[in-house]
């Protein structure tokens, strides 16, 4: 379909204490926006029931043009190396209105 354009969707699942850092990184890497959902779950760092401030996860989505993907992944890898537990994956999506994702957040 001519009106759909390929972009990269980065998804990060981690504890909500990391939110400010992740948002800062997303801003710095020139993303045009981001979306956050509240989540719970389980993994190597145990159960995150989401009932208390101390065990709530977030799921963060960022759509970035392919050429900006690498910088963002660098930041995320650095956090993971420091010991933060995160689930990070990239998927291919086709967006309506690709120009939206070119301008970074003011």
């Amino acid at each position, binding site marked *: 379909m001519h009106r759909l354009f390929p972009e990269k969707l980065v998804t990060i699942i981690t*504890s909500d*204490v*990391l939110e400010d850092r992740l948002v800062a990184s997303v801003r710095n890497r020139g993303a045009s926006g981001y979306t956050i959902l*509240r989540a*719970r779950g389980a993994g190597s*760092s*145990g*159960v995150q*029931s*989401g*009932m*208390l*401030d*101390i*065990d*709530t996860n977030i799921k963060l989505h960022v759509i970035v043009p392919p050429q900006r993907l690498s910088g963002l992944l660098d930041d995320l890898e650095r956090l993971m*190396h*420091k*010991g*933060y*537990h995160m689930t990070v994956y990239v998927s291919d999506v086709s967006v309506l209105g690709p120009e939206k994702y070119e301008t970074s957040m003011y």
Partner: protein
Amino acid sequence: MGTLSNLLIPAVLFFALGFLARAVKSDLRVPQDLAKMLSIYLLMAIGLHGGYELGKAELTTAFNAVLWAVVLGFVLPMVGYILLLITRRVDRMNAAAIAAHYGSVSAGTFLTAIAYLDNIGIEYESYPVIMLAVMESPAIIVGLLLASWSRQRLAVTGGGNSAGVAVMQSGNGNGHLSSIVREAFTNGSVILLIGSMLIGAISSPGSMVKLFPFIDEIFMGILCLFLFEMGMEAARRIREFRKVGAVLVAFGLIMPLIGGAIGIAVGHYALGLSIGGTTLVAVLGASASYIAVPPAMRLAVPEANPSFYLTLSLGITFPFNVVIGIPLYHYFAALAAA
């Protein structure tokens, strides 16, 4: 020893009910934000109330209380850290993170102690409330310092896989300590509690009276609801005790006894409080944080496993204190006074 009467307070009974509900795998679905909302209410109410009382308090004793709160907040994590290293069941980073929790306090346990004292008609001073507010921050700072120091030691000895990276990070910014202190004092629950105390202290008495139905009268009911949920969370956590291991579980039972003993000494001898007040200081010493400290540790000590400190503070020490600890500390506080 009053254990029985303790168990017949609705607050404790609701804790037990929550625990039981989860233990029998009931499908009870509690909204995710209920506990968070209730804990905001509790911090606000306890702060306003404490601040209002403190407006009438002696300044010297209040100052002393703050001082001793800081001392407790600094000393207890160190005791805990050394104990944990002796067990040899956790590495230094985990020891630092766990220890920080025991230097801080659990408002839920403190409030249960107040309900307990109220129920058996024992008076208490308002100073422990300031101590409650003060004790969160030093413990966080000590925890982060211990972690930072452990990270350096690990880097030198080459132990720990991610430690090398971590120490580089923490080493190359000399604003590091200041940011630790900043984080400890802008901690959400610290701000809410201390802010509410200030508001309670400076508001006109007339305007405070209008708040009493909210912060006083419905307080006990909300505490019951909160403890009901915390009972469920404790039961969820206690299941993970096997991952934690018997030695750590023992730590989670012994450390509150040590903290309680130190608390009794501080309350009775250093501050000269009544039996009720001493009991409350003992509870401050004995209880472990599960609100302010865990997020701080998760952020600043990512190498530590949250399962460890959450299971210990929420699954072991919290129920122990609520059911057994409080009447025990009261008993010894009475003994010290006699």
